[in-house]
Every structure is written in structure tokens, then in C-alpha cells.
């Protein structure tokens, strides 16, 4: 996916998240984009690494900065809470220029917005970490994956890790059964 198309898909994700009352701060976008790419196979061509608060992409952070400097995205302040990210009129105009790309990934984007949009940052961190480990250890058992999560995040207890892994498996299975092409359980 080239630069402008990738920008359009990320802006579409922001739009869908906001329509579902997601707070849509950077963490929400990071974790949703991670699920979109590593969960549902949308080729955002960005690398997610395990960082302080779960999977994180430095490239996506730069892309969000680029969208802001190009006035395609703005930061909406809601004191006393953190900022929300919002597509601008120019951002919507950019999405309009890529109807085929937006439509190609629209089911995946909407699925992620439906499932992750309403969650808070802590819940997203758990889901994101569970998906990351699931992808890192494709042939491992859930118990082995839970141990890996505990290794990465010693403060997460085993039951919480297992619950998060189960939730990810359910989400991937649901995506797969509803015919979202790239999804693999």
C-alpha cells in the first residue's frame, strides 16, 4: 500500500473509531491499527514491536505526525482528559480520493472499530499484547503463550493473560467466520 493510500486507510480507521464513541487517542489508534494489520492482514506495512504499553509502531507514530503536519488530522483537546485525534476536512477529502482502497478494507476497518472502539486503554493493551504473542508463537499452546505474556509483562497475572488470549482467539475466529478474507485464527 503506497503512502497516500495508507494515509487514507488510517484516516478511515479514525473516522470509524470516532463514530463508535472511541476516545480515539494515539493509543487507541496504535492498538486498532495493530489488530487491523497483524490480526486481519490489512497491509499497512508498519512494524509493531513490544513496547512499554503493548504493541507499538514507531512508523505509525511518524505517520500520525505526518498526517498532522499535512493538516489531514487534528488534535482535539478535551480537558481534563487527553487529546483525541480527528480527521480534518482535508482528511475527508483525501479519503474521497481513494474510494477503491477504502472500500477494499472497509469490512476489516469496521470490524476493528466495532470490537476495539469502545474499550479503554488498559483493555486495549491486554488484547494487543495477546495478539502480538499469538502471532509471535503461532504453534504454541495458549498456556505457553500466557507464560510468554507473563515474561513480557510480569505484572499481568496468568488468568488475565489466558482471558486476553481467549478473547483474541474468539475475535479472530469471528472475523474469519464472517468472511473477512485475510483473517486467520
Amino acid at each position: 500500500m503506497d503512502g497516500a493510500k495508507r494515509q487514507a486507510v488510517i484516516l478511515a480507521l479514525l473516522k470509524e473509531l470516532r463514530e463508535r464513541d472511541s476516545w480515539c487517542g494515539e493509543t487507541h489508534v496504535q492498538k486498532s491499527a495493530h489488530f487491523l494489520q497483524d490480526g486481519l492482514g490489512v497491509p499497512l506495512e508498519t512494524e509493531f514491536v513490544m513496547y512499554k504499553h503493548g504493541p507499538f509502531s514507531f512508523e505509525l507514530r511518524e505517520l500520525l505526525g505526518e498526517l498532522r503536519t499535512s493538516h489531514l488530522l487534528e488534535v482535539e483537546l478535551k480537558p481534563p482528559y487527553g487529546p483525541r485525534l480527528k480527521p480534518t476536512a482535508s482528511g475527508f477529502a483525501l479519503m474521497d480520493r481513494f474510494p477503491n482502497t477504502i472500500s477494499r478494507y472497509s469490512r476489516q476497518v469496521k470490524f476493528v472499530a466495532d470490537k476495539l472502539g469502545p474499550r479503554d486503554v488498559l483493555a486495549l493493551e491486554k488484547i494487543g499484547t495477546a495478539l502480538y504473542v499469538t502471532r509471535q508463537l503461532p504453534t504454541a499452546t495458549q498456556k505457553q503463550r500466557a507464560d510468554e505474556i507473563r515474561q513480557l509483562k510480569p505484572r499481568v497475572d496468568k488468568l488475565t493473560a489466558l482471558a486476553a488470549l481467549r478473547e483474541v482467539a474468539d475475535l479472530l475466529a469471528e472475523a474469519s467466520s464472517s468472511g473477512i478474507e485475510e483473517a486467520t485464527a
Partner: protein
Amino acid sequence: MATKVLHEIRDPIHTFIRVDAAERSIVDSEPVQRLRDIHQLALTYLVYPGATHKRFEHSLGVMELAGRVFDVVTDPRNLRGEVKEQFADIDTGGNRDYWRRVVRLAALCHDIGHLPFSHAAERDLLPEGWDHERLTVQLILSGEMKELWEKMTPPMRPNDIAKLAVGKKKMKDEQFTIWELILSEIIVGEAFGVDRMDYLLRDSLHAGVGYGRFDHYRLIDTLRILPSADSDEPQLGIEEGGLHSAEALLLARYFMFTQVYFHPVRRAYDMHLKDFLRQWLPSGIFGTEVREHLDMTDSHILQTMRSAQGDPTSKGNEAAGQILGRGHYRVLWKTNPPDLAQNPDAGSAIFEAAKVEFGEEAIRRDQHNPAGPVIDFPIKLYDGRTVSSLAESEVLANIPPAAIDYVFVQPELAAKARQWLDEKRLDVLDRSLAKE
């Protein structure tokens, strides 16, 4: 004769920088000494004549600040609650001394991978997948330095130094513990990295601009390891009393980028420098072998540039003239909100149209977006609560990201090209808005 155990080095920013004998062995090593011959700000001195300072003194300054921050954030009086429990083993088995030394040495070595003229050529003149951080890691882990790490008491683990020197962003395949992430944040963190603190203060002093100054004493004194405002894991944050100095740091960064680092003439010189190097380097790019890297310095390149300027048959003659003869390209267009409102990709539209009008060789583009959307860190309020900085400070949330998008034109065509752009701007911006 008694051996001196602590060495003092005079410094215009920090007054004295003190190093012990073990640290001195690294200061004296070839990779660090080479930094005496790498300009901190490349050819910026052609625009700001005072900006002739080198990576060497910056690296010493980063080491000094890293030690100060480590002492503040790991002071038992400053570690509270769950964070204190999480890092309870800091005072066992020599951990504190070991990690303090790792932080300081990583800070000292964080720039040893820089190419001649620092960042100027890094993006375009290294093989795919290489940057100065990867060269830094390679040098830290190299045989040349291994012996020095092993001689220390206790011996340093080179991988610890490398991880802290470049951070997770540049060692994506390495697993970092939360402790290591926090310590690397002390050096290269987006919000409070001492690399940033030192370069803002130092570049500002040498360039002769006041924009980079902020109260770093107050800021460092209020830094803490805090639980994140909305997550389980701790990170570097500040006590409420340091908020204004944190705002000043991030504003200083914005102003230094817009006024100094992104100065259009400075960027044009970077472009010509890359042209020169592309032609002059045997394979058109820099090598990545340790020896090759250590032998390549600014003096070496400036000397060959001067020779090339005087010899029309020499490789890089034209670019050498553009730099040393001050024949740099001129700004035709720079990014601006009205043009972006018209066309979000205004830079590409104008660049492409100008190339068609004036020829590929006459038109150049320089685009760079260095930052993420907003910088967030925890703040501990006077009442004990921890909140997000963006919830507490409207200043932080409103600092615009610094970015550039310039289209340059050959000096001889500048007047004509500007007139062309005045007449054709709207047409050019509208023309390239086709749907897929």
C-alpha cells in the same frame, strides 16, 4: 606518582564534566575521539557562523546529564509505592553502580556511529537498513571496544550499553525490560531524553539563538519514574512543579527546529553535500565496516571538497562549488496551510509541475516529518494523583509539530520560477487531485 581518579573537563554548558578513570578509557577510545571531527550541525555554520561545535562535546554533555537524571530518578526518596516495589532490587548486588555506569557510558557512546556531517547524509547515503544508530551498536559491540568493556570493574555487558544508547526504536528485535526501557528513555526519550536536552542548550549557545534555552536544572530535579496515567507500566514523568520547564523544553525544541535545524539554506547545503558525497564516494554511498567508518571524518571530506572545487574535471566539482562558493539552490515553495487546504499533497504537485517546466536538474525537494502527533507523559500532582501531561497542560497539547516540505530551484532560475508559481499556483494544485 598517584593516579588521578576523577578528571574534570571544562564545558560551556555544564561548567565541569567529571569522568572517572574507567570512563576516561572510553572517552579516549578512537570511536569517541573521532567525534572531535564530526560537526554537530553539519554545514549549519555556513548560515550560523558560530555553530562549529562537534559531536564530542555534545557526547560528554549527554553523559553528564544522564548521570544526573539517573541519580534523581533512582533516589530512594523519589521512588514511591508500586514503582518502588517494582524496582526494589536496585540497591542489591551492586546494581545501582552498574546501571549508573551503563547509563553514563551509553550516553557517551550514543553518537559514535554518526557519519561525517552528522545527519546530513544519513538517510540517503547508507545501505538499505543502516542508520547511525545501527553503526553505533556495531561499534559498541565491536572487538575494538570489547576489550575496554571487559577491563572495567565489574565488566560491562556491551549489549546493555548498546540497548540504552539507541533505545527500543532502533533495536526492535531485542527484548527490553521495563527497567531498560526507562533507562534508555533517559538518553533517547522523546519527552525528556538528555540527548535532546543537551543538543538544544548547546546548539542554541553556539548558533547564537536564544530559542533552545529552558530551565534544565529544575526539569531534571522534578523527573520521576511514575506509573503511567492510564496503563500498568511505569515511565519517565515529572512532578507538577516541573511542568513549566517541561513545556519550555518542548517549545524550545519546536523553535530550534523551525528556526535553526529546518532553516532552508541549511537544508539546501545538506542537499549539495549529499550530491558531492554521492559523486566522490567510491560506490556512491558510505561503507559500514568499522575501520572504514572510523577513518571517515569531516576534515577529510572538506579537504577533498576544496580540491574538487578548484578542479573542473574532479568528481563533485559542481556540488563543491555550490557549497564553498555559496551557489546553493533557492526556495521556490515551502509548505503552508492555504496550499495544503487546496491540495493535501501540495508539495508533490508543485514539485512535479516545476520539474516539467524547468527541467529535472533545476528543481529539488526536501521533505521531513520528524515527530509523532503529540508527546504524552505522566505528571504527579501535588495531591498525589498521577495524570496525563496532555490533560494538565494545554501548552503541550497545542505545540505544533515541526516539519518541512521545501521545493528548491537553481539560483539562476529563482526569479523566473517564482513568477511562474505566482501565476500557476491554483492551476497546479487543482490539476493533481485525481481520484483513484
